[in-house]
């Protein structure tokens, strides 16, 4: 199990525990985290599970693949720390991960 913290635009945060091997998007959906829509169900086809990875976790969580980078073109207010949470597999190294939910998911 790993702990993952989602911080909403208004600053409220929610820490959930999730099985290793799930994606961060799945952890969010299983725990009804607001603002993670995942319209396509995790196929890296919609960009509605966009998150900003906390700076302290950028190195551990790695960089987006080319496919994910392409799909991030469909997200709004993309930053250096942007990831699609459906493409982030939870590993033991990500225990404690902190991500921020964007103000608008579209």
């Amino acid at each position, binding site marked *: 199990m790993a702990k993952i913290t989602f911080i909403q635009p208004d600053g409220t945060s929610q820490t959930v525990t999730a099985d290793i091997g799930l994606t961060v998007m799945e952890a969010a959906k299983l725990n009804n985290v607001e603002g993670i829509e995942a319209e396509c169900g995790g196929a890296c086809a919609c960009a509605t599970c966009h998150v900003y990875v906390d700076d302290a976790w950028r190195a551990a969580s790695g960089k987006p693949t080319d496919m994910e980078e392409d799909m991030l073109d469909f997200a709004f*207010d993309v930053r250096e720390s942007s990831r699609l949470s459906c493409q982030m597999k939870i590993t033991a190294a990500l225990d404690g991960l902190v991500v921020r939910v964007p103000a608008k998911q*579209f």
Partner: protein
Amino acid sequence: MTTNNADTTEQISTDVVVIGAGPCGLFAVFELGLLDLKCHVIDILDRPGGQCAELYPEKPIYDVPALPVVTGQELTDRLMEQIKPFGPQFHFSERIDEIARLADGSFRLVSDQGTVFLTKVVVIAAGGGSFTPKRPPLDGIEGYEGTSVFYSVRRIESMRGRDIVVIGGGDSALDWTLNLQPVAKSLTLIHRRDDFRAAPHSVEKMRALVAEGKVRLAIGQVTALQGDGKNLQSVTLKTADGEETLVANGLLPFFGLTMKLGPVANWGLNLNENLIHVDTERFETSEKGIFAIGDINWYPGKLKLILSGFHEAALMAQAANRIVFPDKKVMFQYTTSSSSLQKKLGVR
């Protein structure tokens, strides 16, 4: 199979109109075809496959019976092959906007292109709804749509002399950059990174225009719109160097498509959370003769699976058959053994 690109006066009579050319809509054509019902299929996309074609053409699906793995595109191609014997008529890039019941119980449908369909049965297989362009969450953007903000351009002339801003990095953004540059007063292409998903030759052409000074390429994002609420005057462009105000009275944002229920919501059907309630014997809606199958329907125990939609199509077809041919004697037959079904399939 043929594709009809409708003009405004076309009127088509048919047994069944299938709304949506995703896997369930396509398989409905098969099940209806076995019963001799002729179909016209309408889809907002420019090709068959629905979500399979738009969202995951290259991604594997593992839960279609007897196909351990199949991509969205392969599944679509196979369904198209399977329904070929029934000669469905396709109407792509078209959306049904209105449904009205006629005195004899049949229906009159009108598309956004003005095509009129007279049909005895309507099958809504619209999945998550119509694919519609994503609207960037910029304050006030709705007010500018149609006057200054466009998600597609029907007449290039309407953009002549404008200061145009195109946002995006795919084929739509590049195509419109190339098409509109000759008529624009100025054209700025804005993308969040200096890397494009579009066809390489379009990217080359765009870069050539940038080198000639005819197009400006800005790496950044639009963060705000300015104008009188209806007519856009400028946009705020945020780049690595900071913010600037860019004069613009034409904005074309290309952020892909999303699914919206669309006009289905106005057809007087029993809906719950944007899903159409159906019974599980006929998959008929609250309106007799209008059926709903696949992801767009709801009934107790509903699973949004392709295989469930296929089952729903088969049962729906039996009920549709009784509407179109009330006097026909119904005999259940298997494709494996029935010579009449095999004849229809062209295998005998």
